[in-house]
């Protein structure tokens, strides 16, 4: 019990004095996850929107596939990316294994299906509402998609937050492809796993508290964004 309380005190100390090791890990985490989020957004938002508004053979199958890929087990993603990037793999020459870039790739693969599926949902709902008006006005498809993305922007930010939350908290994939190398690929989740197993509960707890705070902040932001959108978006017309 003594140890337990002690760990909390030490953890608090680490956070308050902005321990350099701690800061390094947190910054790397954010850098990796935000990069992955950017890459996923560039792929997922347009693709999700396209899936929502276009009709082509095989579209249904693609929707089912992205929905299924949302549940990709992170360790499997890690394994696949590992195989691609390892020396024997097809992308081995790039020498990316055990670099932050490898972790960005793994997280991107992990959350892109989520972004596609959620974006498709958001844009589809809005499209149901706008489609006939756009048809009447003769709005060209690219303009329509841009308008749907813009008018759905508040919901889409919450989609991005969901992707961020999933990526930043993930441990299996980045552990496999990053290798949890000190000062190079050690991020919050892998550091927590390692320090806990080594018995350094203070650092693990400090990182855990920061991760928890991030998750809460993401949640708070999501409900903050949704509240006014509900107010102005769905008020029944007289």
């Amino acid at each position, binding site marked *: 019990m003594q140890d337990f309380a002690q760990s909390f005190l030490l953890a608090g100390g680490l956070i308050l004095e902005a321990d350099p090791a701690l800061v390094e890990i947190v910054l790397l985490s954010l850098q990796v996850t935000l990069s992955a989020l950017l890459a996923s957004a560039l792929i997922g938002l347009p693709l999700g929107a396209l899936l929502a508004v276009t009709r082509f053979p095989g579209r249904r199958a693609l929707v089912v596939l992205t929905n299924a890929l949302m549940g990709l087990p992170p360790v499997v993603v890690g394994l696949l990316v590992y195989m691609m990037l390892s020396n024997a793999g097809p992308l081995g020459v790039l020498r990316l294994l055990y670099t932050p870039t490898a972790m960005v790739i793994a997280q991107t693969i992990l959350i892109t299906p989520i972004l596609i599926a959620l974006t498709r949902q958001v844009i589809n709902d809005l499209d149901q509402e*706008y489609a*006939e*008006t756009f*048809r*009447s*006005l*003769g709005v060209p498809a690219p303009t329509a998609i841009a*308008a749907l993305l813009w008018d759905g922007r508040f919901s889409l930010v919450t989609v991005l937050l969901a992707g961020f939350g999933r990526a930043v908290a993930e441990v299996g994939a980045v552990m496999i492809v990053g290798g949890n190398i000190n000062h190079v690929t050690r991020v919050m989740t892998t550091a927590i796993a390692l320090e806990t197993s080594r018995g350094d509960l203070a650092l693990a707890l400090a990182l855990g508290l920061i991760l928890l705070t991030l998750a809460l902040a993401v949640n708070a932001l999501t409900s903050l964004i949704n509240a006014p959108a509900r107010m102005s978006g769905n*008020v029944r017309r*007289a």
Partner: protein
Amino acid sequence: MSDVLETPASVTARSLRRSGRSPMPLRVEGLTLTLEGTLVLNDIDLALADDGVTAILGPNGAGKSLLLRCLHGLVTPTRGTILWHHEGRDHAPDLAIRKAQALVAQKPVLLRRSVLANLKFVAGLRRPRPSTDDLMQALREVRLEHLARQNARTLSGGEQQRLALARALLHDPRVLLLDEPSANLDPASTLLIETAIRAARAAGTKVLLITHDMAQARRLADDVVFLHKGRIVEHTSAAAFFDRPSSAEAEAYVKGDILL
């Protein structure tokens, strides 16, 4: 020429812009629409001149809105032909037809943006692109300029309808399709809409007007299409329709009897 365009009456400007445009008469044959096994439009034949105001009357559920949406190309009929004569040839209601027309739906859908941004969106689809001054003028005409910055989705029902009308007129349409445009409106707004309809008519725009307001139909219509249970029961001049309707249904409807 420029002197004339400077006149405050935007009606004059519009009619000048419109002059020289090709007429757009309509011919419909055997139009039939079945939805979920129900016959909602039944073998409709209709010919409309390319000018004037045609009122489409009939009780709820008669098929008025669906007819208008078929004519505009939003709903594909089960059978029959719809031909708009436009720029020298007959068109089914295709993209070119829709772009030359404007529909104000019974429940207009506005974008989740400000009032002004709603007009800006449509302006972006037009060449030449109307200026922001033009848009503010359009808002002034429907008395919404003081709400330009407000979210369009928080407008009252009547304000939304007026914005939808401004959006439609911005379009500078050859044919204006109005589905109960003053259903939610107070008398002042109704007058405003009727003024806009008269102005459009005077400028050579064909107007198709669905309304339940008999007095309004008398004030505005040149001819009347009376629809009942998916069929056209009567299509005559407005004077003839209101003075001596030839069908029992129309006579009862005009008198205010309830049609079943």
